[in-house]
C-alpha cells in the first residue's frame, strides 16, 4: 500500500478558544478513522485544537473560479448589507 492509493482528506480544527472549526490543511488516509488519527498526529502536535473534523476532499463541492465575477461581484456595491448601521445590544456576543 502506498500513500498514492489513499484518498485526500481536508482537516478542520477548532482551537481551545475558537468557536468554529477552521480549515488547516489536508492529508492522505485510507479511511476516516485513520484520517482523524493522522490529523491528530500531523496538525495538533502543539496543542492547536480540542476538536477535529475531516472530510474527503472529493466530497467538497467548490465554486468555479471562472464564475467568480458572476457569483461575487454583484455584492460589491451593496454596502448597506453590512450590519454596521445598527447599534448592537451589549448582550449579543460573537456577532
Amino acid at each position, binding site marked *: 500500500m502506498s*500513500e498514492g492509493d489513499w484518498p485526500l482528506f481536508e482537516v478542520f480544527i477548532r482551537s481551545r478558544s475558537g468557536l468554529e472549526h477552521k480549515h488547516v490543511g489536508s492529508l*492522505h488516509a485510507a479511511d476516516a*478513522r*485513520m484520517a482523524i*488519527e*493522522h490529523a491528530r*498526529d*500531523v496538525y495538533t502536535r502543539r496543542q492547536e485544537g480540542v476538536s477535529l473534523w475531516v472530510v474527503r476532499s472529493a466530497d467538497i463541492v467548490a465554486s468555479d473560479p471562472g464564475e467568480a465575477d458572476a457569483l461575487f461581484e454583484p455584492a460589491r456595491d451593496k454596502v448597506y448589507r453590512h450590519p454596521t448601521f445598527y447599534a448592537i445590544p451589549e448582550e449579543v456576543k460573537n456577532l
Partner: protein
Amino acid sequence: MSAATTLPEAQQEAHCRYVLRLADTSLVLGQRLAEWIGYAPALEEDLALANLSLDFIGQARLLLTYAGELEGRGRDEDALAFLRDAPEFLNLALVEQPNGDFGHTIVRQWLIDAWQLEIYGALEHSTDTRLAAIAAKSIRETRYHYRFSSGWLVRLGDGTAESRERMQRALDDLWRFTAELFAPDEIDERLNREGIAPALPELAPRWSARVDEDLRRATLRRPATQPYPWHGKGGVHTEHLGHLLGEMQHLQRSYPGARW
C-alpha cells in the same frame, strides 16, 4: 548488618528495580520507534511513529529520574539511559525486538500497548503516589497508542492476502516474548504485597481477552504459548538490545558529558 537495616534496603532496591523495568521498557521502545523516522511508509505515519516515540521517551524520563532517586547514588536520567550496559537494562525483551516491516512494528506496539493499558491502569491506584501520578499521565498517551496500533492491526490483518500473511508472521514471531509480560517474579510479588504494584496474574486475563477480541476482528490466529529463555526484566536479553544501545549511547560513550 542487622535485619532491621537489611529489610528496608532490600525493599528500596526492589522498588528501584521495579521502576527501572517500566522506565527501560518505555526507553527502549521509544528508541526503536525513533528508528522509523524518515523511513515510514507515508509522511503521516512517519509523524505518528515519531509522536509515539516521544511519548515513550517522555515516560522514560519521568521514570528514570524517579528510579535514580530511589537508588540514591546520584544517577540522573541521562546517567541511567546512556551509561548502563545491556545486562543492567531491565526492559521487557519484547520491546527490544527489531522493527521488521511496518506490520511487525504494529504487532509489537499493539501487544505492549494492551499490556501498558493494564499496568498503568492498575498503577494509578498504587500506594506509591509518585508512580501513580506518572501512570495517570502516561495512560492518556497509552489509550491513544492503543487506538492507533489496534486500528492498524485490524486494517492490515483483515486487509489483503499479503498484509494478513505478514501480520500473522509477525504475531507468530513475537508471541514468545509475551510470556514475560504477566509472569511475576520475586520483585513483582514483593511490590504487590507492599501495595505498590498490581498482581500480574490478576491482570493477565484482561489483557488476554482484549488481545483475543482484537485478533478476532483482525482475522488473525492466536499462536500457542511457547516457553521462553529470556528474562528481560531480570537483565537477560536477546542479542538485539546490545546493538540498540550501541547506537543510542554512542555519543555519550564517545564524548562523555557532551551537551547541546
